[in-house]
């Protein structure tokens, strides 16, 4: 009898100790939010939109695809000794990029990762229980970014998989490379929507948000690329007549760290210097490697070619404002080396061996609008506004170096190169005007028509064997 009592007692003890409920196993993450409850409120969407804007940091980073393509695959910039896998980074300037190039794969990942952040907002905002005006505003901003990104991608890779909503891994195998026309039509659709729904620059809620003018400027560039000069002229004229923008009187003031979001700025990536902030990486990256004077190390990206230096007219003040010709080391010896000057931040705080600079980066600015407008209208008046600001004689005037740049097209090509030097435009400009092959070949670049597109990364083809490589990369 006693024994039975004991067994019952122990049984109760056991049951007590078995009392842990299954909820014991339901542990929510302590240091991250859980995405399953996200994308509900306006606050959620604000946070997500801010992240979508932050993808600009990778897409327009100093070591980004547009940087390598625009500057190093053109005649503007080169690389010397740098850290990392040198061969993969040197490959761009020498046009020997292979499908296994790790940088190209990184670029590919950056774009689609950014597109996910955009697409998920566009999808979730559809069904969100929020004010229609807010939903439209968010959609327009996201479509501006998506248009910008796909425009870059189609110019660098040609046909790419067109992803317009979040897709699962299973779905992704069926998404193959879309014809360029389809990509351009999405780009146009997105940018037209953005131009229609975004506010004027003077009315954007906070500096840095995409504006109507930004969407229209980009549209103008897309139309020019599609050789639709009429449409380009029309939309760019609207930017001019909107009265939102003006050239700054002084080219130098464009590059003062504290001069942010000026009248000339059409779309500008926002950075904030100092510890804990999203700081600007350009100065560190563009300083000569291991200079130990200007910066703690220096990244050595986009070191300037003599060819760009020599492109400037003799009395062009923009030359010295855009390019350093060297630096003096700690022992007082001058080290001659040309490198970008536009993003200097000599007072940046340094933490962990790098500068936390404060410079913003202009993706689109009014000088670009004016130069495109001359290209679209064949009217040198806009070009000459840009030259006047630099204190240089107008195209068509007696003092203009007509011998060197005998046509308006060549004059625009020259002006864009020096005005927008090192701002990630050159190679795209040459491609748009079908000038890349003759210009670059003449400068000794081993370029062919095929090599004007980047390869699809090897690993992407391995993941989905239905995808095809660009010609010339097999």
């Amino acid at each position, binding site marked *: 009898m006693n024994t039975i009592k004991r067994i019952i007692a122990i049984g109760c*003890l056991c049951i007590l100790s078995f009392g842990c409920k299954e909820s014991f196993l339901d*542990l929510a993450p*302590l240091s991250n939010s859980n995405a399953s409850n996200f994308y509900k409120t306006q606050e959620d969407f604000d946070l997500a939109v801010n*992240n979508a804007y932050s993808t600009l940091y990778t897409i327009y980073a100093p070591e980004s695809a547009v940087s390598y393509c625009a500057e190093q695959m053109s005649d503007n910039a080169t690389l010397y000794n740098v850290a990392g896998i040198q061969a993969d980074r040197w490959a761009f300037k020498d046009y020997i990029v292979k499908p296994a190039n790790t940088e190209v794969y990184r670029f590919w990942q950056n774009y*689609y990762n950014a597109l996910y952040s955009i697409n998920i907002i566009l999808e979730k905002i559809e069904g969100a229980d929020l004010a229609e005006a807010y939903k439209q505003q968010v959609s327009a901003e996201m479509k501006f970014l998506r248009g910008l990104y796909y425009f870059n991608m189609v110019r660098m890779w040609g046909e790419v998989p067109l992803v317009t909503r979040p897709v699962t891994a299973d779905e*992704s195998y069926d998404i193959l490379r879309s014809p360029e026309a389809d990509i351009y039509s999405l780009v146009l659709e997105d940018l037209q929507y953005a131009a229609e729904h975004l506010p004027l620059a003077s009315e954007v809620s906070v500096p840095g948000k995409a504006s109507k003018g930004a969407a229209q400027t980009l549209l103008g560039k897309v139309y020019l690329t599609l050789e639709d000069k009429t449409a380009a002229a029309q939309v760019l004229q609207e930017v001019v007549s909107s009265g939102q923008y003006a050239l700054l009187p002084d080219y130098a003031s464009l590059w003062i760290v504290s001069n942010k979001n000026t009248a000339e700025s059409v779309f500008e990536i926002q950075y904030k210097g100092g510890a804990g902030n999203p700081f600007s990486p350009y100065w560190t990256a563009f300083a*000569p490697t291991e200079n130990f004077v200007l910066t*703690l190390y220096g990244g050595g990206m986009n070191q300037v070619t003599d060819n760009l230096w020599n492109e400037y007219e003799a009395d062009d003040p923009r030359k010295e404002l855009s390019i350093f010709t060297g630096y003096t080391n700690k022992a007082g010896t001058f080290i001659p080396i040309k490198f970008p000057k536009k993003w200097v931040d000599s007072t940046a705080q*340094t933490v962990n061996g790098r500068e936390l600079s404060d410079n913003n980066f202009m993706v689109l600015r009014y000088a670009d609008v004016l130069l495109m407008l001359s290209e679209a209208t064949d009217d040198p008046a806009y070009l000459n506004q840009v030259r006047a600001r630099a204190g240089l004689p107008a195209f068509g005037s007696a003092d203009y170096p007509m011998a060197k740049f005998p046509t308006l097209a060549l004059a625009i090509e020259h002006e864009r190169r020096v005005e927008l030097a090192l701002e990630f435009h050159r190679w795209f400009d040459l491609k748009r005007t079908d000038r890349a092959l003759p210009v670059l070949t003449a400068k000794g670049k081993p370029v062919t028509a095929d090599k004007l597109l980047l390869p699809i990364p090897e690993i992407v083809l391995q993941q989905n064997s239905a995808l095809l490589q660009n010609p010339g990369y097999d």
Partner: protein
Amino acid sequence: MKSELSTKVRNLFRLLLYGIFLQLLSMTVSLAQGVTTQESDERAVQGKVTDDQGEALPGATVLVKESDIGTITDMEGRYVLNVPEEATTLIFSYIGYLQQEVAINGRSVIDLSLNPDVTSLEEVVVVGYGTQEKSAVTGSVASLSHERFEDRSFNNVLQSMSGQLPGVNITQAQGAPGSSPIVRIRGISSITAGTEPLYVVDGLPLEDFNLNMINPQDIESVEVLKDASSAAIYGSRGANGVILITTKTGKPGQTTVNLNYEYGIQDVVRKIDVMNAQQFIDYYVTAHNNAWIAAGGLASDPNSVRPKQYQIPEDFINNPEQFGEGTDWQDVAFRRAPSHNTQLSVSGGTDKTQFLFSGAYLDQDAVLDQNYYKRLAIRSNIRQELSDKVRMGLNLAFTSIYDRTDGTQGKSDVVSLAVQSDPIFPVYNENGNLGFKDPNSEWYRFAQFTDLQLWHVYSLTREIEKQNKSFNTLGTAFLEYDIIDGLTFRSSINGNLLNNRYDSYRNKGQKYGYSSYLDAQGNNSSAFMLNWLTENTLTYDKSFGEHTLNALVGYTAQHQKDEFSEVAAGNYPNDLVHTLNAGTVTGGSSTASEWSMLSYLARVNYDFQYKYFLTATLRRDGSSRFGQNTKWGYFPSVSAGWLMSEESFLKNNNLINFLKLRASYGVTGNNQIPNYGAISLLTTSNYVYGAELANGLEVSNIANPNIKWEKTTQVNLGIDLGMFRNRVSLSAELYHSTTNDLLLDVPVPDITGFSTQLTNIGKLRNKGVELNVSTKNVEKAFSWKTDFNFSLNRNKVLQLGPENAPIIVTDYVATVKTAVGQPISNFYGYIFDGVYNTQEEIDATPHDPSTTPGDPIVRDVNGDGQITEDDRTTLGNYQPNFTAGLINTFSYKGLDFSFMLQGTFGSEIINQMIRYNGIWNGGRNAFADVANYWRSPENPGDGIHFKPTIEPKGLQEKFSSYWIEDGTFVRIKNIRLSYTLPQSLLNNIPVKVARVYVNAENVHVFSDYRNFDPENTTYSSGLLIGADYTSYPVPRIITFGAQINF
């Protein structure tokens, strides 16, 4: 005879399983009955029971044969027993000693000395949630008792186990004191989840436990559960094997005081052969000239006509002799380092109480400049009988470690940087500063050359102050209650509390010794971990005639929370005050994570006639890590054994005295997956509008509600054989395991926005053979024993993610490819077949267009007549073909000598230092053999090393066979010599045992590997294991020790 043996064994089995207490229980009953029989004729017998050394044995049992009459001995080992007239024989017994029957023959005084039962002590092994007699084990359990690692001078018991157990591969990736070795049991059973075994310390299962927290001298035994049937009782955590650590307890009897002191000397005996200053200057000049010539210049061109990057310091051209041999930075980094280890333990007890108290203090300098390791370990293990049915126990251990450990982090840490630094610079410049970047130094003339490199050892060891402090408390408490005969309830509460704190301060500018002049910086971080476990089990243990049954059911709940915080500060006014308040805080963060687990477990052990054994287990695990749809998993196992030598046809066989066959099948899991892998997480990703910081959140991974454990199914066949009265014993095992539902960070098309998704997909197989042979070659006054072990494992990937896309991982250019049909982590790249000597040779073979004489010959692997990325192929694999260990032990009187050889055969290593020291890389120093590079067709060098250039084109820099080295080695791992003073010398002093010994670890390595040690690997887990950016060398350690027992 047969039944007597089986009764004896069964009794021992029961005794050991129940502990001393049950026996005492029966004693009490007997004594009570003894009182009732006092009326009959009887007489007193008395005496003293001692052990074989003559020491009194308190608590020994004295029974009258075929009666319930008996007593136990007192503290002096004395007894008085009233014996009935008709009684003829007394039975003396004591746990751990052979039971002895003595005829009374009318005597009234019977003194007796009992002999220890060595076999019974050795043959009990700890298995999960209990113990088992070794000959009854049906799975694969390797056991190592403390004798096998005593005197070894390691801080971590795992290091002493290396090479001793077949199927248990223990390698020392980093030689720093306190660095835990890498343990792989029966190959690699996972691709991306963890591959470390589960550690169970006195019943508390701990993932990622650092065994440095347990003083090896406190450990009684270590058991390794190798096969799935033994590990299945640990369910979702058993797939990588389980290591059970059991700490010592006191034994009833006289109190023993053990005092031990060791003095050790550590040296780096295997250095990396790098260029001296003269060789380096020649290499530097040639690399610049080759590139300048390729760019259209002449070698004779002065700096004035060369662009900056092709310029050469005038000192190198005009007066290279001034540099002499230069500085060997490894000599600056390493030193002979002493260590002191003092240990004291007190143990003993009575029948009701047993205790062990121990304390140990280790004070060790490390071979790397400024590095040290100090450990204080205190333990108290107590066991108490509360009543005849209730027992409890408490093990409490506290360990504190203060250390500074640099050099283990690979390429940017001090050891690797010392190997990369140029030999031309002095240890101190004329200002007493460290580097050539001192603007007031004459050495500053070299600072304008951006391709001269110095990361001065002292700039990292003396100009940075660092200290890591760890405090670990481990406690296990249990209560046992005998409900009815054979049925025991046990409840335990266990906890592990770990606190880490790390402080560092970097002096401003580091005396110009580092590559850049960095501001002062202070860092502080702390980590806190609490793990608790509650366990409740019911055990039923009973014999029915020839059937013996042991059954177990249980329930456990476990929870762990990890917290981490860090703060950094800069902008210090000077270097006087190093705490963060002196600077300005530049960053800080804190994070936390947790996991929990609920488990139900059951096991039945059954044997018939102690010949036929059957074990079945089942565990059900639920874990917070698993997805909503897959919270719970079942892990069953079954195993059987046949003790053939107990059968009549083998009984009394002269050749074979022991033979057992074993077979097992089990399912285990691997839960070493991220804590929140099933959940889609948001991470911070901020933007700025104007001057205003704007918070942003980004989806960092895709949710997967189906995430679960990896599942390993293993079949094990084993045979244990003893011949010539155990002069030769052999144990062989064969296993085949398949891991399903591999949790892979499956590469998914990047157009999803992600590169990988954590998914249970994929399958791999391990199969292998293990052999252990022990022989007693000579067994006289002089004895000689040999232990040999051999293991072989073959690993093959059977299935991967969608389309079986291979998993490719790279570090810099080093590429490791895991593909279906191949072992995990094949090294993947080009094959270099030497160096092109002439243009004709180049023209005659497929080549990269950039190739010129002096460049590497790249093999056209696919034979398509051109060199493309398709010519990359398998270059090797880190997994060895087989490993072996050999231990010889000799003794003569008090003298013991042993040595141990250990070998790994057929593995390859990626020498990541090729990136810096094998190929020109920004002016870093190079391996000495690189000096035999190609100079001209007339002076082609060794035909391996191509011409150096500062602008490598083509494939020189790519990952190739040039990076692969043979990992085969044989190591004289250990030599030991000890002398125990003869008892006759100790008779007049209160010392029981006095011993002195010398122990040498890592005596010599036979290996062709160019870096410090073939066991070095920068990555200790994951697919890149076997890639070495130079690691902390494994030093040779010689210790001198003395031990006294009172």
